[in-house]
Each structure stands twice: as structure tokens, then as C-alpha cells.
């Protein structure tokens, strides 16, 4: 991922000097720019360019794939492999096991986002990206919270039903729906009322230019905690599938 960030950043100097691209982008309708993460700014500015190239799609995709994968592996995957039986025969509460796994998933996501943040900070002076430190940090906090929400969703689905496929599929489908609603609600007016269920909408678009929406990050974080809390109670309500 760091290599991908490096590659994208390295291309920036040639984009920066391209006046034509800027004009082309300006001619796009506003909602479309929103969807592609260009926002109100310019794609030839550092933050505008990285918003479009990284933060509008690739970075969220990457963080979510990792988070959902970990979340599904942590419980549903371990149960599927028959390894949970031994762990739960030990003197640990199921709810504590789930909490510990939740912490591990969150730690993984946070470390990943921290690595991306450090990579951006290091690349900024090299390629003249001109990033605002506060907004960049806030963008990655938003991304981390988004990742944790979906990772914990995958964990929670695994505690509720013994199915690895569902633990992967449900959060992935929800993330995809949230992404589309968050990006398209301005374009498709009928989606507007449902935008409040989109985690992506709460975090906000073009985070390097705008910073993540503070209240939105809080809302998503609370939702994530609620999901984790649900997981700790759901896990006590069923029999374990053993090989």
C-alpha cells in the first residue's frame, strides 16, 4: 500500500503542471466531482489530486478489504477452521474473547492508517504535495473509523451466525451501498433521505481538502461501538459449530 501511495504521489508533479486537466475537471458537473473526490478544489492541487486518486476510492477500498477480512477471520473464520472450540474451553468469557478480537482488528486498522499518514507526511516535501497536516490527520482518522466499523460488523456477523461467507458478504455489501449512497445522493435526489445511513456520507468526501466531518466521525464511531457491544451479547446466544 505504501508503494501504491508512493507511486500515486510520484505522478503528482506532472499532474500539477497540467493546465488542460484542470480545465477539463472544472467543466465536470459538481456532483460528479464530489463522487470522484475532486470536490470544490482543483485536481492539480496536492490535496485535490490525492483526494481523487487515493481517498475517493483506493484507500477506502484497501482499508475496508483488510478490516472486513480480519473481522471475518477473527471469529467466523476461526470457528470454521475448528479452532474456537479449544479457545472457548479455556476459562475466558465469550464476550471477552470477542472484545479482545475487536481490539485486535481496530489495532490493525489504526496501524495501517498510521502508516499511510506517515507515508504521506514523508512524501509531502519530496513531491510538493502541500498537504494541510490537520486535515490529513483528520482524513485518516475518518478512514480508520470507517475501517473499524466494517471490521467490527464482520466480527459481529460471525458471532451471530456460523458463516464465514456472511461475515464477509454482509459488511462488504453494506460498505458498497454506503459508498454509492454517499457518492450519488446529490446526483440522484431520491437517495437524499437515506444518506444518513451511509457511513461514507457521515465521514464526508474529499477529506484532504475539507478534513473529515468531526460530528460524522463521532457518529460512525458510536455506531461501531454499538456493533461491537451487540457482538459481545450475540456470541452467548448460540452453540458453537465444531468440526
Amino acid at each position: 500500500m505504501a508503494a501504491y501511495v508512493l507511486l500515486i504521489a510520484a505522478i503528482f508533479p506532472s499532474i500539477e503542471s497540467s493546465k488542460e486537466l484542470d480545465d477539463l475537471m472544472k467543466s465536470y458537473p459538481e456532483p460528479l466531482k464530489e463522487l470522484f473526490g475532486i470536490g470544490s478544489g482543483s485536481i492539480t492541487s496536492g490535496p485535490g489530486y490525492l483526494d481523487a486518486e487515493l481517498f475517493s476510492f483506493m484507500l477506502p477500498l484497501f482499508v475496508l478489504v483488510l478490516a472486513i477480512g480480519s473481522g471475518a477471520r477473527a471469529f467466523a473464520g476461526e470457528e470454521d477452521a475448528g479452532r474456537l472450540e479449544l479457545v472457548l474451553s479455556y476459562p475466558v468469557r465469550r464476550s471477552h474473547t470477542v472484545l479482545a478480537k475487536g481490539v485486535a482488528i481496530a489495532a490493525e486498522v489504526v496501524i495501517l492508517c498510521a502508516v499511510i499518514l506517515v507515508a504521506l507526511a514523508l512524501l509531502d516535501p519530496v513531491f510538493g504535495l502541500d498537504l494541510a497536516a490537520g486535515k490529513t490527520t483528520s482524513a485518516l482518522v475518518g478512514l480508520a473509523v470507517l475501517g473499524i466499523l466494517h471490521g467490527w460488523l464482520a466480527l459481529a456477523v460471525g458471532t451471530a451466525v456460523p458463516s464465514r461467507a456472511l461475515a464477509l458478504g454482509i459488511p462488504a455489501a453494506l460498505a458498497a451501498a454506503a459508498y454509492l449512497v454517499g457518492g450519488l445522493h446529490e446526483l440522484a435526489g431520491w437517495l437524499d433521505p437515506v444518506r444518513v445511513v451511509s457511513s461514507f456520507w457521515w465521514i464526508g468526501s474529499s477529506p484532504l481538502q475539507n478534513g473529515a466531518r468531526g460530528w460524522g466521525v463521532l457518529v460512525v464511531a458510536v455506531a461501531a461501538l454499538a456493533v461491537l457491544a451487540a457482538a459481545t451479547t450475540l456470541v452467548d446466544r448460540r452453540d458453537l459449530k465444531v468440526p
Partner: protein
Amino acid sequence: MARRRIGYLAGDLRLSDRLTAREQLDSLVRLRGAAAPLRDTLCERLGVELDRPIRELSRGNRQKIGIVQAFMHRPDLAVLDEPTSGLDPLLQAEVRTLFRETAADGRTVFLSSHSLDEVQHTADRVGIIRSGRLIDVDRVETLRERAIRHVSIVFADHVDPAQFAALDGVRVERVENASVRLSAAEAAMDALVKAAARHRVVDLVSEPADLEEIFLELYREADDAD
């Protein structure tokens, strides 16, 4: 929590394949949150391969790790499902010795096994479960005494086996020249011996049935009752 005092070994043991046995056991000790005083002696005694990744280990070598983790914290109760499966005969004997020592120490081992020979040689008391219902619990010796016994009698001359077959609870299994092999319920023994005593007896051997026959007998009875 009761699980502190329990050691458990699943019938189909799954471990973290990428860890070594040492890492797996370290992780389980941490999970238990208590000392594991027997860990090192058990590893040594069973010859656990500590430093190779578990996925490279044979079934028997994995099973050893399972046994170590079930006994390392000196549990008051060990619940073991087919604990000796995959082990070579020498190790099976060693593990059975471990069970006996645990029992002699005043602790308890619940052993589930399909090898009735193993049960017969290891267990004090046996419960027989059929379709999820406990249909009998008794000491192994009592079970064997209660069950039929095999009686072989060698007579001096040929004897008509029909007189034994006519007795209640006696079945003639084989007749060979002057020797007769019978199976008899405990209640029929007196009549059988008295019937035999009417002839010149050269030898008489009575052996209790082994657990396998008792097991099959109990299953047959339960089938009849259904």
C-alpha cells in the same frame, strides 16, 4: 469459573497451524492466565516437537500438544475425546499411565473412546451412551461380572451338548470331541456346573466377557426395548 479446573481435549483437535508447538502452548498458557506447572515435564515425557510449525507435524505429534495443554495446569477434571488416536502404541501406553497417575492423585479423567480395549484397561467406571442417552454406568469389573461368561469344559468322554443347551441362559458355542465351549449368564452358572458334574470333568475354565461383548449386548437390549 469451572473451566479453570478443567482440561479439555477435543476429538478433532485443531491448532494454529502456523505457530510452533512452543508458541501455541505459550499462547494457551497466557489464555488460561494461570501457571502450567506440568507443561515442561509433559512435553519431555511425550517427546513434543516444540520448534517446528504445527502444520508440518504428523497427526500423532499434534495430538501430543493437545494432551499437554489438557494436563499442563494440573486440572481437577480432564475431559478427553479419543485422546490416544494417532499415537503409536508406546505413547498410547505412556498416555494411559498419565491417566492412571492423574486418577491416583485424586483427580478425575473423563475419557471417551471407541476403543473398548482402551477403556477396559484404563477406566474404573464406564458409562455407555447410545443415541445421546446414558444407558448404563458401572465399574468395569461389575459390568464384566454382570455380563455373560465364556465357559470351556473338557470332559473325559464325549458328552451330549443338548443337556447344556436345554438349561436356561446357556448357549452352546462350539463342540469339539470331548470339549464344549458355552456362554452362560451369571444366574445359569450353578445349574451349568451341576449338569457338568454328572460327568467326569478334566478341565473347566470360566472367563468374563470383554467390554466389547457387553457393549454389543447392551446395544442389542436397547434395540429390543425400542
